[in-house]
């Protein structure tokens, strides 16, 4: 028994048969089917269970607005929950299962909830699980979460990739129904660059689902011909399977293209989906309209669906929802459904029209002035109860009911920039209104133009307006009947009439919300969950508003709508991430010695986007401290080498270069001689320290400024701001050269001996010729251009040597080679940190955005004889209080104790609280040189408190230890070693 409800016609390819699996059962379908249409063709109406009451549900729609038929698509790591069966394009081997049930779909144990529905009404959880509070997190929430909800994630990493992309066009047309196709055709023929997107895999919109005619052709044929014409145009990009998810600023639209969702799995290297950012001058929204249901008792049974969906299944997919179908309508739309069904040979069990003047038919019964009051059928519709105009009731057998309650224009994208739609009385629906996103116009049903001829006309007109075309194109003939609708939202009476089938919200729930004071439409939404979740109330919102309006005695526009936000339909998080995941989450910057460091087994740490060697473990070392201690001792004992390429380097040139640096640094630079380097401190405008570094004067009009690794970009940005905005008259030019030079620190008593084997003999680097803080452009290794700076972060005799980056790898290998007799040791950022703490040098921990030069013990560096950025505000009273924080060193009284960073200083006795806080530790380490832990800290009036004993506390980590305040210069305070 296969495809028992397959009927003739439709746009499916019957020459091919596809096998698929739903709930462990194999079925067949054809290319062109959706999962929902194929299941209906196979006689399967039950596709899922509802969110709250676990009611049996089938598809309500045939499109992306579907609230009910949500399935888990694909198994394993590719599983995708909450996928709409109505939009899943059938492919061979498709695997799907229904979700949100315990036991088989037909016998869901959780359906017991339905029996207690009187208790589970709106606000149930808020009212019931109030107390005891302790029960909420551990008991109530897990139980509720387990019982409710939709599908579940696989918990596995998604094996597929997602791309992002960027497109540009003159005109973006969203939606390829009659208005969209006509707009695109008009623009394409005028030579504009056009992008046409449609969420469906077959362009044409309703033309594919209706039996109407355009010119001499069927609507579907006209659509196919028009698509073919557009496809042949080089200036047109057709994007089927592409949902425009949002209208963003400056003519930017987001669109998700489902590249591989219709395949068993993506081709090698190909993405599953692409998130496009479309830059367009003009946009025409041709998103069509969504039909809405009428609520009545038990209107949620599988088989009860929208009239437009029934026509789609029958006309487009050749799949009958049932062999006997009734129609319930408040407009002529329902009669269109009945005529189509009759033409297809499907028995029309009756047309129930609420209008007394409903059109008559010879082919089937029309019950004018009647309504559907109830339905039966546990797992699928079997019969409906009809109340005739005279009040009599009777039951009609049918396997499906096509409900037509009117149409809601898809205004969503017109509201993404806070626009509010306007109420149109004749359509009884919201239409685009007010302020639209700039460059956006709306055509066709999305703009409330409900006839085919109107859609074609408005699409062409919108294109002409958008592109300033003078002549309207010739338009083919098409039906142009006005929409005749009698607003009708729900059938009053007992029992539960479902408004929002996705969230199990009934008419009664809306009434309860109103009764309990949740009368604003925004409150209604939150209290009842109406319009939430994957369908965002596309079929339910307006019905909810209508009932709220009725209760409040207001008009629907007075009740208003909730806010429309992107994305238009559910969008996979993966497509937002694109290729930025795992190791490729962000770009990585590698130092010139990276490959060499990897060969040495270096452990790397991220600093900014850089990967820097943190330490270089050696055989037998089992703890990072062993490696770091060894590196420090080897450097202080003989010589070490460290890649310092990551420090920012900014080339400053121009006749005003020195004057410029005098402005950006708080200390003086004007008199720095050529061939010398100076330590400099930059202040922010507010007097707080921003960054420190050195500036080397290579010529009268040429400096190289170094910054910390972390602040390389922000300092450069700051300097550009100063150059362009504060001192535009200065002759100064800036450019970053961080990447251009590979730079290595060679430090230790034997540093000079090592470098003398590298630097060419013509360059004298003896202590006399090249003293501490000297700099020069040199040659090395037989003529390679390089730069040498005698600067020291470690406190040792030290140099930084720079070569063009492409030689960095060769240079580190050469330094290691010539340094071997001195046991030269590479050291990483940890040893670098230990040595600078031993020397009391400030780093990022101390330059933390709250500290001043005074705090850092560098108060005297702020020149009072010139005006530089931050000088004036650094004099603020509050920054110069007598008990201002000052940088000090700390040593533990018990040498075994640690002095952890982040701990706070308190008096040796007395309370431990914020009111008695004396300061805090910024940097801490074990000093292998001193043999105990040390720390740098900021202490109130610290400079005057050397020798004091304080308590160091960290209530969070349970630390309480006694420390002595000492000079921050733990090692070689006179600096004899670095001048050696």
């Amino acid at each position, binding site marked *: 028994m296969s495809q028992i409800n397959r009927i003739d016609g439709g746009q499916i390819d019957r020459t091919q048969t596809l096998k698929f699996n739903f709930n462990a059962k194999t079925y067949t379908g054809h290319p062109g089917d959706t999962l929902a249409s194929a299941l209906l063709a196979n006689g399967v109406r039950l596709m899922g269970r509802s969110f709250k009451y676990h009611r049996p549900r089938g598809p309500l729609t045939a499109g992306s607005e579907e609230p009910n038929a949500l399935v888990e698509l694909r198994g394993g790591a590719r599983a995708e929950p909450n996928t709409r069966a109505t939009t899943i394009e059938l492919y061979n081997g498709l695997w799907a299962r229904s979700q949100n049930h315990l036991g088989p779909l037909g016998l869901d144990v959780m359906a017991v909830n339905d029996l207690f529905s009187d208790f589970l009404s709106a606000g149930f959880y808020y009212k019931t699980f109030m107390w005891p509070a302790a029960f909420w997190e551990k008991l109530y929430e897990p139980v509720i979460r387990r019982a409710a909800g939709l599908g579940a994630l696989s918990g596995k990493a998604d094996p597929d990739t997602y791309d992002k992309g960027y497109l*540009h066009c003159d005109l973006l047309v969203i939606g390829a129904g009659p208005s969209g196709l006509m707009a695109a055709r008009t623009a394409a023929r005028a030579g504009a660059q056009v992008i046409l997107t449609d969420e469906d895999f077959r362009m044409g919109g309703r033309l594919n689902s209706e039996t109407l005619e355009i010119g001499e052709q069927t609507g579907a044929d006209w659509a196919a011909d028009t698509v073919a014409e557009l496809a042949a145009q080089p200036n047109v990009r057709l994007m089927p399977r592409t949902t425009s998810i949002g209208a963003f600023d400056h003519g930017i639209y987001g669109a998700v293209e489902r590249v591989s969702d219709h395949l068993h799995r993506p081709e090698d290297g190909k993405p599953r989906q692409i998130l496009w950012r479309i830059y367009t001058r003009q946009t025409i929204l041709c998103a069509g309209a969504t039909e809405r249901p009428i609520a009545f008792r038990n209107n949620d049974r599988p088989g009860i669906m929208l009239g437009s969906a029934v026509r789609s299944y029958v006309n487009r997919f050749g799949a009958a929802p049932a062999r006997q179908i009734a129609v319930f309508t408040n407009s002529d739309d329902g009669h269109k459904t009945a005529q189509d069904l009759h033409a297809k040979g499907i028995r029309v069990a009756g047309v129930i029209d609420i209008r007394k003047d409903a059109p008559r038919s010879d082919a089937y019964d029309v019950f004018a002035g009647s309504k559907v009051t109830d339905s039966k059928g546990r797992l699928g519709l079997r019969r409906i109860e009809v109340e005739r105009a005279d009040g009599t009731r009777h039951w009609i057998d049918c396997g499906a009911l096509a409900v037509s309650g009117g149409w809601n224009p898809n205004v969503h994208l017109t509201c993404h920039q806070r626009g509010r739609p306007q109420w149109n009385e004749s359509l009884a629906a919201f239409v685009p209104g007010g302020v639209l996103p700039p460059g956006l116009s709306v055509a066709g049903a999305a703009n409330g133009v409900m006839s085919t001829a109107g859609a074609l006309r408005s699409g062409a007109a919108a294109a002409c307006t958008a592109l300033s075309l003078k002549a309207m194109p010739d338009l083919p003939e098409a039906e142009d009947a006005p929409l005749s609708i009698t607003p009708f939202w729900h059938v009053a009476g007992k029992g539960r009439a479902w408004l929002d089938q996705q969230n199990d919200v009934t008419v009664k729930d809306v009434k309860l919300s109103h009764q309990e004071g949740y009368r604003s439409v925004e409150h209604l939404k939150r209290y009842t969950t109406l319009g939430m979740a994957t369908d965002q109330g596309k079929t339910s919102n307006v019905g909810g508003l209508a009932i709220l309006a009725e209760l409040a005695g207001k008009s629907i526009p007075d009740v208003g709508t909730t806010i429309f936000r992107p994305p238009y339909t559910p969008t996979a998080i993966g497509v937002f991430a694109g290729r930025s995941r795992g190791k490729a989450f962000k770009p990585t910057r*590698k130092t010139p010695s990276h490959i060499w460091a990897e060969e040495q087994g270096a452990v790397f740490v991220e600093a900014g986007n850089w990967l820097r060697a943190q330490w270089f473990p050696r055989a037998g070392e089992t703890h990072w401290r062993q490696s770091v201690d060894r590196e420090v001792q080897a450097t202080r004992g003989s010589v070490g080498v460290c890649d310092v390429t990551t420090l920012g380097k900014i*080339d400053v040139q121009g006749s005003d270069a020195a004057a410029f640096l005098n402005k950006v640094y708080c200390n003086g630079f004007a008199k720095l001689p050529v061939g010398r380097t100076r330590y400099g401190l930059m202040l922010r405008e507010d007097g707080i320290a921003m960054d420190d570094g050195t500036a080397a004067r290579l010529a009268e009009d040429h400096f190289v400024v170094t910054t910390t690794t972390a602040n390389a970009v922000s300092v450069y940005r700051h300097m550009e701001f100063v150059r362009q905005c504060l001192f535009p008259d200065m*002759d100064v030019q800036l*450019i970053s*050269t961080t990447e251009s030079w590979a730079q290595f620190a060679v430090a230790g008593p034997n540093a000079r001996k090592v470098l003398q084997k590298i630097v060419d003999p013509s360059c004298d680097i003896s202590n006399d010729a090249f003293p501490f803080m000297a700099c020069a452009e040199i040659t090395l290794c037989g003529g390679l251009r390089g730069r040498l700076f005698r600067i020291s972060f470690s406190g040792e005799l030290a140099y930084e040597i720079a070569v063009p980056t492409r030689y960095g790898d060769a240079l580190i290998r050469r330094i290691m080679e010539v340094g071997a007799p001195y046991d030269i040791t590479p050291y990483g950022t940890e040893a670098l940190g230990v040595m600078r703490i031993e020397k009391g040098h400030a780093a990022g921990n101390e330059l933390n955005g709250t500290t001043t030069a005074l705090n850092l013990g560098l108060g005297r560096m702020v020149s009072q004889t010139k005006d530089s950025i931050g000088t004036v505000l650094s004099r603020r009273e509050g920054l110069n209080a007598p008990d201002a924080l000052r940088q000090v060193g700390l040593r533990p009284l018990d040498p075994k104790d640690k002095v952890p960073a982040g701990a706070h200083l308190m008096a040796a006795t007395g309370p431990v609280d914020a009111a008695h806080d004396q300061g805090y530790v910024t940097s801490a380490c074990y000093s292998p040189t001193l043999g105990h832990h040390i720390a740098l800290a900021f202490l109130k009036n610290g400079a005057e408190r050397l020798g004091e004993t304080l308590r160091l506390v960290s209530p969070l980590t349970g630390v309480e230890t006694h420390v002595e305040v000492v000079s921050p210069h733990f090692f070689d305070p006179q600096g004899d070693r670095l001048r050696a």
Partner: protein
Amino acid sequence: MHSLPPQTALGAQSAQQDVIGTLSLTEVPDVAIASVAARKGHEAACAKTLQKLLGATPPGPGEMTGTTPYAAIWMAQDQWLLCAPLHSHEDIASLLKEEFGADASITEQTDGWACFDISGAAMHDMFERLCPAPVRSMQTGHATRTTIHHIGCYLMCQDGAFRVMAPRSSAGSLYHALIEAARSVS
């Protein structure tokens, strides 16, 4: 002649080359680069020298001039990146300093950038997946700043091919992004 061997931006001895479908990706290490920024008050003189070197009007915003030996890319107001073959212009900064004298500040940028050439029928499709630049409307002589995988780049169009220049330290990440995009569209 010094004794240190150079390394490419991708950390190899020779340039990386890949062919993916119709697309050809080639790392281009043979490029010497320097920035030329006019000194204050010397803008006209700087532009004049530049014109002499290029044999063409200096490029404006969004443009490059692909002459030989020097090609120029507009960087900022009165500032350009000049490129020349590395094998003949290794010391490009000194060479340009001689040309411009006191009219411009010259800064060597050769090793600041990793350079890749991409050509082939699908190259527009590829760059549409990589950067927001309007790649389909770019013609020979167009050059723009853009971002690829969060990396600030220059994208240039020259003789039916694209050239990307990105900060050298990010060459590996850029290369990864280029290859993935090439596979995606091939």
